[in-house]
């Protein structure tokens, strides 16, 4: 294991600890949106999918590993579904929460979802 790999492993551990601390403060009221938000973040694997798919070869040049590339497309679609679906549905849920003073001024469940990626 080279130094860089050691540092990467350290990042993994440190970010897990930091995440654990931050998330411990989230009230159970918001656990479902938190989970679907975290779920969206787990689609960060899209970065790996993009890099790995591109590394199967350069389009238009010989030597493209097409089987691998097609699996890469599937991976990108799945990861993107995870990211976009996760964030959009989290947004939809969070917009339903109203405090007592705000309730009644807006109708529930009909807000537009903010689809972003």
């Amino acid at each position, binding site marked *: 294991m*080279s130094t*860089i*790999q050691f540092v990467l*492993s*350290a990042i*993994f551990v*440190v*970010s*897990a600890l*930091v*995440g*654990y601390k*931050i*998330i411990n*403060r989230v*009230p159970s*009221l*918001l*656990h*479902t*949106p938190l*989970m679907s*938000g*975290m*779920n969206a973040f*787990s689609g960060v*694997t899209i*970065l*790996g*999918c*993009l*890099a*790995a*798919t*591109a*590394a199967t070869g350069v*389009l238009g040049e010989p030597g493209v*590993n097409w089987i691998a*590339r097609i699996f*890469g*497309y599937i991976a*990108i*679609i799945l*990861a993107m*579904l995870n*990211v976009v*679906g996760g*964030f959009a*549905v*989290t947004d*939809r849920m*969070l917009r*339903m*929460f109203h*405090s007592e003073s*705000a309730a009644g001024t807006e109708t529930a469940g009909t807000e537009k*979802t903010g*689809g*972003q*990626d």
Partner: protein
Amino acid sequence: MLNSLISIAVMAQSSNVNIIPNMDSSKQIPYLVLAGLLALTVLIGISMMSKVNRAVAGNLLGSVSMALAIGLTLWAFDIFSVVDLWVAMLIGTILGLILSRKVTMLQMPQMVGLLNGFGGGASMIAGALTLINPGGEDPFSLITSGLAIYVGALTLTGSIVAAGKLHQVFTQKPIVLKGHQFWTIATALLGFVSAILFVHPAFQSGAAKIILILVCAVISGAFGVIFSIRVGGADMPITISLLNSFSGVAGGIAGLAISDPLLVAVGGIVGASGLLLTQIMCRAMNRKLTDILLGKTSTPMIKKATKGTAPAVISDPASTATADDAAVEFTDEGAQEAPAALETKEDPHLDWLKEARRVIIVPGYGMALSQAQEQVKQLMLLLESQGAEVDFAIHPVAGRMPGHMNVLLAEVDIPYDKLREMEEINDQFKNADLAIIIGANDVVNPAANTAVGTPIYGMPILSVEDAGHLIIMNFDRQPGYAGVDNPLYDESADKVALLLGDAKASLEEIFARLADR
């Protein structure tokens, strides 16, 4: 974390080594710095999600960070103009948007489960491609690629089975195979070993490597299925949290394999959050994580319950036949015809409703199944119009995923300040004139405090018995998922009104009768 990223950057500058395969060396330092910044904004976004009024903005910040991370990756790897990657992303985006708009709040657990599975599948493929692609032949990236396949595959299949169970595609009953324990451990170990085998020189070349990838994926996938089919309906919140954690870990390991610090950092955060929620759920359900992982689900626990020597109420032998089916029976609650109309002939509970000044409503999954949220809101408004103070007591495991009940009630526009956590509201029951329990059973069962040896013994419950009067709406008198009789059902009619049947129908009937008066 930022410090470590800077130290990577400094290292890269001084030694000019290639940190990230396939990336132009001049872009590596700016990439690492920007990735560190994005990891920070992701963390800020997540921490904003701890307050309701900032949560929407936090989610937005997270999604913008993710979009920038994708742009950054495309730029850093010089693949910004590769058209087919964009087409694939567009397809995924469109499908994701459609799915997110179609899903109902009741279906949220299976939605999260399914998306989890997709993330795991993507990590699995990313791991496999990293093995196949040229470059990265050092043991560290070989092992981490193998582990990405392992964790990714089990997340994919485990999540699909969990989502299928929640969506009632498969039975919600735990499915136990012959020698289930053996197969669980065998597939878990073999999957792990096959992931490690990628370092072996025999699997460095073409065909052998491809075969090992397939073998590893299939065995790990089988582990996911075997582990997930054994979990019963009510343990699902725990399974979903755990799989959420796995999907983060899978992404993080894939990040280790391709040396991407951003992927590693976010994967670690997600992994930790899933684990934390799993812990919270386990504590609230009085279950051990190892019991669920090794498949000790409700069935053996119910048998234990009938053997118990406790002084308190325990299922009698006659009712254990139905208790074995409890997982299924529980979820079917409210879905069928009501077995009986209102049981009480006289209506003291209508007077309680009229006279109550302080009311606490306890919603359970039975309310969600009969889709009675709108009626529950009407009940709240009715009581408030009479000058009563109304709050909702939410048990941490009410529903099919952590916090599910809050979302269902927020959907019908019940203000979130009325949704109280168990610790916060439990000592207020003694001040309440009336507690209304709608489709909840185990989480209010006082036997949890007294019935030593039963599955729910020691489980924290809502102390509804402290309230002046109780109205209990439940589908039938059967014990809940845990199979322990609820002594509240046998309390005197002076204190407890038991309204059997579909919660929606019971509420409509209350409204009608109150209007007649």
